[in-house]
């Protein structure tokens, strides 16, 4: 199990309160809208404060690498709050994807040189896996690695790379004659170029990254990328699920508040059963999603009484994706015309919900992943 430092329920609630208050003050809706409109798509100053004042990126990184050594259950609180506030920033790509890949690689040198920077927020990392077909593959990359006098160079094109244009460190999956492997590439390396893409979810910047004979350092064993990426997927699925639940709850709360205040036909719309029952259905889906995410986080942390991590992660990704998409759409419906305007925040969640649902392949893919974990 990865969890080394224990934390009580009360401490988790305190953490939630602290992060929520901080984000409410510095990352409210208007701040989010300003941040996503400017380069690099998030508020760099806020990101620095989250790292230095609150120490958030360090939380789930082992103490040996400059972190606090908490597990994903603890980190899930932070992710839930960031999902709730739709805070743009490289938290997911740097802390979950990049740090997750480094840890999964078991590469002592890579971890001790790279993780402390991610932990203190001075380095933003990302993971470049996806190629032209958009699939989260673990083998068969068109991007190739060539050994050149004891060091490596990469050539190829990656796409849908989160924070690809602003990251300081890219972990890139590429083919080698000994099978797929993971490589570290530093921003500014020769032959590396990144271009930001228009995105469905305007709060998560995404880039295409081209590599041409770009110098790279092998991370983990040659041919080990398949296992590393499978491990990252478990960790990233439950982290995403925690974010999704936070965001879904925000949609539910928004819809409930509006249903209590908006009147039609001389009554609050929430007194009409068609609306009341819609909100009850939303509550049921969010409650179920919360349970799925929680169990996924506990499983990823290796709790003794938790189900196998791959099963719980597949369940969490499936249930939380569906729940978030459902409440994001119904939230707009409850708001009527105002819900369809650019000015209303409802579409930010709707955009995020669909992008999240498709992030690691989409429903058809994650359903097959779930069946595979059960041997079906």
């Amino acid at each position: 199990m990865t969890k080394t430092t224990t934390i009580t329920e009360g401490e988790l609630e305190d953490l939630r309160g602290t992060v929520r208050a901080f984000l409410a003050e510095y990352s409210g809706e208007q701040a989010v809208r300003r941040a996503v409109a400017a380069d690099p798509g998030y508020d760099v100053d806020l990101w620095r404060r989250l790292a230095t004042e609150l120490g958030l990126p360090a939380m789930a990184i082992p103490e040996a690498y400059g972190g606090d050594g908490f597990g994903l259950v603890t980190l899930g609180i932070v992710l839930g709050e960031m999902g709730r506030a739709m805070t743009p920033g490289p938290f997911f790509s740097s802390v979950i994807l990049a740090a997750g890949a480094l840890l999964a690689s078991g590469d002592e040198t890579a971890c001790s040189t790279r993780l402390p920077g991610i932990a203190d927020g001075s380095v933003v990392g990302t993971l470049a896996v996806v190629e032209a077909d958009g699939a989260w593959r673990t083998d068969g990359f068109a991007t190739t690695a060539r050994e050149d006098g004891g060091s490596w160079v990469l050539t190829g094109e990656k796409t849908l790379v989160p924070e690809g244009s602003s990251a300081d460190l890219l972990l890139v999956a590429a083919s080698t004659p000994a099978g797929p492997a993971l490589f570290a590439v530093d921003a500014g390396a020769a032959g590396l170029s990144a271009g930001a893409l228009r995105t469905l979810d305007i709060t998560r910047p995404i880039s295409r990254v081209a590599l041409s004979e770009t110098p790279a350092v092998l991370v983990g064993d040659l041919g080990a990328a398949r296992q590393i990426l499978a491990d990252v997927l478990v960790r990233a699925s439950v982290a995403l699920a925690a974010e999704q639940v936070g965001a879904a709850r925000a949609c539910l709360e928004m819809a409930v508040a509006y249903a209590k205040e908006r009147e039609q036909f001389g009554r609050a719309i929430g007194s009409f059963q068609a609306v009341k029952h819609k909100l009850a259905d939303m509550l049921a889906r969010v409650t179920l999603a919360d349970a799925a995410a929680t169990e996924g986080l506990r499983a990823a942390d290796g709790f003794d009484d938790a189900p196998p991590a791959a099963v719980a992660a597949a369940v969490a990704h499936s249930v939380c994706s569906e729940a978030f998409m459902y409440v994001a759409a119904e939230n707009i419906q409850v708001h009527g015309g105002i819900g369809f305007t650019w000015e209303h925040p409802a579409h930010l969640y709707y955009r995020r919900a669909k992008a999240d649902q498709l992030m690691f392949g989409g429903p058809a893919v994650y359903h097959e992943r779930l069946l595979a974990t059960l041997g079906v």
Partner: protein
Amino acid sequence: MTTTEADPLAAFADEARAFLDAHAERRSTDAVIWGKGEDHTGYFSEDPPEVEQALVDQARAWQRTRYENGFGWITGPESYGGRELSGVHDLVYDQIEAEYDVPDTGVLSLIGLGMIGPTILAHGRDEVRDRYLPAMFRGEVIACQLFSEPGAGSDLAGVQTRASRTEDGWVLRGQKVWTSVAQHAQIGMALCRTDPDAPKHKGITAFLVDLSLPGVEVRPLRQMSGGAEFNEVFLTDVHVPDDHRLGEVNGGWRVALTTLMNERASVGNEASTGVARVLSDGFLAALLHESGHGEDAAARRRLAEITADLTAAEYLNRATIRRLRSGAQPGPEASVSKLLWAQNLTRIAHLAAELVGPRLTADTGEWGTFSWNELLLSAPAFRILGGTEEIMKNILGERVLGLPKEPS
């Protein structure tokens, strides 16, 4: 951090295992061997009366064994043969017992021990508690819930069955309906109107009725699933002594709430029934393959969706148990779980029907085909019993989300 040595429940769990090892067989395995074992998927039985009577006798005997070994009333007071342990101990025991092949005791426990027992304990006089509680938990007395009437279902406070004062007690007149297990029961808890002029919630009184009294007539009602597990109960000038009153005169609504709160927790808890078996991943996976749909993308996807939701519902129950363990009060999970339970079973019934195909429509004798009718024909009841889907959603909307009440 989750090691069992540190868990105060561990000793209790060990004790439960030792008891079960001594008195029951472990369920063979989780592995599903298609075509082997019971071919039942249903919640309601369709058995002839003599078969059903034999099952009731087995249930009684197993409850007696539990009681005599200290597992018959885990949360009950010691003076009535209970253990005075927490509801969590109860849940732990249920989880462990589900690993063993034991008789299904639903006929006794879902309504009588799960709902009426706690109500008698909370609101009954000493004479009534002494007389019935140990007998119920020893498996001798089965209790039913005489709440619904032809004119009062969802709006339960609208009951019209009258109870009028006599010198030494009360005389009851009226008709109850949909009364599960009344054909096997010795007692029933009835809600009756005692003050027709008061606002409807304020004019009701609760009674415990001995069903062998003159004037009580139980008539079976055949259900759409074929069997007859619920009944009409006619009360014609039934004399009930005043010491069989539960709670205050005209205070019956409060008493009913105790029962209803326990009902939410009871519904969906069917660890050892055919329903529990068809909920397992292995069973559903076998259905997919054995029905020839192993490579059918649409069927695989529907199975995955249902499996994810079923598994998450199980995680939700675990989360509830963890919260209760740390001393929290039960939250809205009960109503959410009831809704999801009915929805999930309904989805499974229809997926199974589609996978089995036309072979569902006639009994060819082939294992695992026609038997899915049982679940299919039970499913509509799941959305009604214990409070309809619509009423559950009103409760969630108004009591959890704080939405405005229905204008009356």
